């Protein structure tokens, strides 16, 4: 890739690593814009090269901040767009082929393999590009075979026809066995003619990210009813938008938990109050007591995982548990771009971001200095005692660890509803279905090697 582009990627990575980009949405937007730049680059002539490059750059950005799962999501979305265009192209060409090469090929394929579903399907439709389901599960291998046979026949025909028309990829989406010369020829022929569609697709994705809050907020009136008491936790731009929109039509009350140690709930309460919504600010410790009076919890998420759980700002688990105890619906507002294909047990997900302990305790606080001093003194004493080696420092020394985790895991059974920008709410159990809609199966795990290393 060109140097300026690489520089831009590296600069963005540095910003991510150094925590200079704030929030998931900014990370998602930044990634999407870089990838748009990448796919518009004139060097990516074939869909294969494009996929590989998007994956490579995507993995680089993801590595800069592994905790930010949306980066991987955006990369998968873009790859999905490319794959869809490949499929569409494939289908188109297959149609031409069928029209041109008459029925003998189809007959040959049809004669060699059987299958109920084939009766309803186009014989050249790439099988594995379709979602794996009960309808085509058994056909998988057979169809591949059929495609191969057909491809060979077609190739012979094509050779006989002295390559009058540019040959296409015909071995089916799964194999991508298009021969080298063909790719070469295509490269010489110029740009992939569906490139513009891919760029448009990425543009749509960026637009989706831009409108995300509005799209979610448009459903506000359906979820918030008159005179309800809504509990929110900390600050969230999305939630604020949502409540403001609801307040245009409805009259309701909001209880805001301040969310230590950032205390951004205070800002949230201030902004809600400024928007004319009746807000009550409570400390986190009062959440459980307050829950009895609450009709609904509106929460936000850092990432939505494949099993329907969410990674949420720290403290959300407590809120969800309290809501469950009082049978209060726990609604998560979540742009679909946060939907990740990873499961929480996946080693690249299962960790937290531990932030600066200074949020909790100033470093020059006596409690921080004391253990260190005590240890130094103990070591000195050990040194003075000379040969009297003990197995380590004496027990009972002061010891203080300040942990400032950033995220919480909220299991699916505590979540009542997801409200996304896709115009309808869904339950956690429906998440797997959403996955197949937005991502391609092959992209579910982007970096197999890294994954193996992590498990190994």
């Amino acid at each position, binding site marked *: 890739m060109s140097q300026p582009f690489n520089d831009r990627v590296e600069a963005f*990575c540095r910003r991510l690593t150094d925590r200079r980009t704030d929030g998931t949405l900014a990370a998602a937007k930044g990634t999407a814009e870089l990838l748009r730049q990448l796919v518009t680059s004139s060097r990516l002539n074939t869909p294969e090269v494009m996929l590989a490059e998007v994956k490579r750059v995507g993995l680089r950005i993801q590595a800069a901040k592994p905790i930010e799962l949306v980066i991987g999501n955006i990369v998968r979305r873009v790859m999905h767009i490319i794959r869809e265009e490949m499929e569409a192209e494939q289908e188109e060409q297959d149609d031409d082929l069928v029209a041109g090469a008459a029925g003998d090929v189809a007959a040959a394929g049809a004669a060699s393999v059987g299958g109920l579903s084939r009766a309803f399907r186009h014989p050249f439709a790439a099988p594995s590009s379709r979602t794996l389901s009960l309808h085509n599960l058994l056909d998988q291998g057979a169809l591949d075979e059929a495609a191969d046979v057909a491809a060979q026949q077609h190739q012979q025909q094509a050779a006989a026809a002295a390559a009058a028309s540019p040959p296409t990829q015909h071995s089916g989406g799964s194999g991508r066995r298009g021969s080298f010369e063909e790719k070469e020829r295509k490269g010489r022929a110029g740009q992939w003619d569906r490139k513009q569609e891919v760029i448009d697709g990425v543009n749509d994705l960026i637009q989706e990210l831009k409108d995300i809050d509005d799209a979610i907020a448009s459903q506000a009136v359906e979820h918030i009813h008159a005179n309800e008491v809504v509990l929110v936790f900390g600050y969230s731009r999305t939630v604020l938008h949502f409540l403001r929109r609801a307040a245009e039509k409805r009259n309701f009350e909001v209880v805001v938990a301040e969310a230590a140690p950032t205390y951004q709930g205070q800002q949230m309460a201030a902004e809600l109050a400024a928007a004319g919504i009746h807000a009550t600010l409570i400390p986190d410790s009062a959440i459980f007591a307050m829950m009895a009076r609450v009709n609904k919890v509106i929460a936000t998420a850092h990432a939505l995982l494949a099993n329907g759980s969410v990674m949420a700002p720290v403290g959300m688990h407590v809120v969800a548990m309290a809501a469950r105890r009082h049978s209060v619906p726990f609604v998560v507002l979540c742009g679909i771009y946060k939907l990740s294909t990873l499961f929480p047990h996946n080693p690249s997900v299962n960790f937290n971001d531990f932030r600066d302990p200074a949020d909790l305790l100033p470093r020059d606080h006596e409690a921080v200095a004391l253990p260190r*001093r005590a240890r130094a003194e103990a070591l000195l004493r050990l040194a003075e005692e000379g040969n009297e080696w003990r197995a380590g420092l004496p027990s009972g020394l002061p010891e203080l660890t300040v942990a400032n985790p950033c995220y919480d895991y909220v299991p699916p059974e505590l979540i009542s509803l997801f409200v996304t920008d896709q115009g309808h709410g869904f339950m956690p159990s429906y998440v797997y279905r959403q996955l197949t809609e937005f991502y391609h199966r092959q992209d579910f795990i982007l970096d197999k090697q890294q994954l193996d290393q992590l498990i190994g």
Partner: protein
Amino acid sequence: MTCWCYIQSGSIIPPWVAVPAGNLLAGAMQAVVLLLNEPGLQPLALPALLPAGQAPAVEFTLRWLESSNCTEIHLVTPSGTDQLNAYLKRAGWAGGARRGGAAVHVMTAPGCQTEGEALRFVEQKDVIKGDFVLVSGCVVGNADLKPVLQAHLARRAADRQAIMTLLMHGGPRTCSGAATGGAQQQGRCLAVIDPRSQQLMKLEQGGRVGSHGVSLGTHMLSERNSIAVRTGLRLSHVYICAPDVLMLLSDNFDYQSMAGDLVPGVLSEQELGSTLFISELARGYAERISTLAGYSSVVEDVLSRWTYPWVPDNSGDQQDLCRFNRGTYVDGTAIMASGTVVSKGSLIGHGSIVESGACLERSIIGSDCHIGRGAFLQASCLHSGVRVDDNCRVSSAVLGEQVVVRAHARVETGVLLAKHTVVDTAHSVPAGMRVSLIQHKAGGPGSDDEMEWGDEDSAQVAAAEAAAGALAAGGIPEAPLDFDQHVVGAFGAGFAWSEPAATALDVLPLVLGSQSSPSDCDSEVEDFTKDAQVVEEMGDEEEHATGADQFKREVAETFLRCIKERISHDNAVIELNGLKIAEDRTFADCARYIFTTMLSLCLPASPTVKAEYRALFPEGQLDPKSKEGRLELLRRINAQLKSWKALMQRFLKSSDDQVELLLTFEEYCAEEGDFASGESGAVFAELFPQVVKLCYDQDVLSEDSILDWAREKEHASDEDRHFVDMCADLLAWLEDAEEETDSEEEGSDEE
């Protein structure tokens, strides 16, 4: 701040003219990082390349500056340019594989020892075009500099004379008055500021700030209604400077250190109109690596995430798989056998192998290390490629690259092994030792600080490395070198860089120094007794035992009465003087009994003390055998010394008097002579060197007299020399210090 753009476009506006505020906020700054040699870290490699966590310290500095909008960073270093450049290239800061972001340039300033010299060098190079951030030393930080930079630039826009902003750490938050660790205690300074504008009017720093009081000129109050005197502030060694600062340094070529010379210089030249400001860091981290203690403290902070987001598990590197789990960092490529014990605050680096039964307690293992079976590491820091064999014990030490510690060896507290050294099987490296393959030349201090070596030296080093390599592999070197066997063992490789630098003595005053209350500024006992002192000693030395005893009791009683009735120093001096004249005694006689009474005041009252004075003695028996007891005792002695040092000084005019005092103290500790009965002097025997050190610190004893005392005892019998031997460390240190102060006045500023 891109004023230099104006210059480049051919404008005639001088570079230091502040540009309008609108530009400033969005703009970026230049930064200068001075990576001078740190004598406190020798013989380790460049301080900038010492690993803190996984990455070298300079990486932290660069990331921090880049995050603070510095787009052009100049590293000034007197040596090691090649290593630095190699690292910068590898890490993508410079060279072909440069990532976006800040541009980093390395400037070699050969022979630069001080901040002043280095900055004059920068000035000559003419690379600084506008206001810039000056970082002196390798500072690891995450404090947000942006608001400070903005405030500085806004101030500059309003007043061109506001040439510098000093970044300071605030004081400790709790008022318990306890020290906040050795490294932090250093560099506390006293600052007089205008509370409203944060303008700095006086800055005092050094070991005993504020103990002599501070004089404030009335001019300070001429323009403002209030001033604030702050004692808890600490320099962070980060300055935001206008280019004028460089010009000032060039004009005053004798300025060496920023805080020590430049700041007082500017403040004393009010008429020039330049003003300095301070900015107190409300939160955020910024610590310099300049001593071994400072280094280990920074490493510990990095591991406890105070430098977030620059922590080992957030390198942003694709290849880096360091994970943070329950307080320990383990790299994905590291191999740990089952049965290893790794405590919180440990790190196991890339590709390292830890064998079964090894125990790591708050230790950091760099990349590609090998820790043998049953090895035990405690609060240690291992750089890359270190091999620690089976059943070794390493405690609170720093092991440089490729160091080999062979089976059953021990490395004791405070040891520093520079790269490629080898410790022989079952050898024990004594505490506080610094070992290197390079032989430390005992030449002038100038050559001391140079890590560079000439051609013949490099050949020597190559030979040493070859020998060390052979020894590390368990063989015998072809050309055996005369390594210091008492340090590294018969088949070890390494020379002692310096003898154990009396770590105990170094640390103790730090621990004790915390007790200084800001109120003991009452050293203003002048004039009053001058005439009394002119009455000189009639020193006939013969004493009758009974007379001596009586005089001793008299002095003690007078002294106690003075304390009890809170008689002022001056009057106490008069009373004691009167006693002296009446009994026809010397000053030393008075001093010695005052001193012993003072010491006895640190212990619970003995039965011989009169009931009326018992209240003066502390309650509760101390256990002088335990560490706590001893520390507490030292603390009390320190407090006593502090409050009575003025009095002592009155009676210890000459060096002879002071030697006399030391002899008395010996007697007192040994419970012989005058003190044979009823005194619990033996308690202090164990603390003899520490107490002498305290006296030295409080200026009660001068270094000359301590050395004289030692010399006097030189030919005494072994028994007599007992206490002198105890003080061997202190004496060596004093001798060193003397040489240093003789040859180089600068030393204290750099510490």
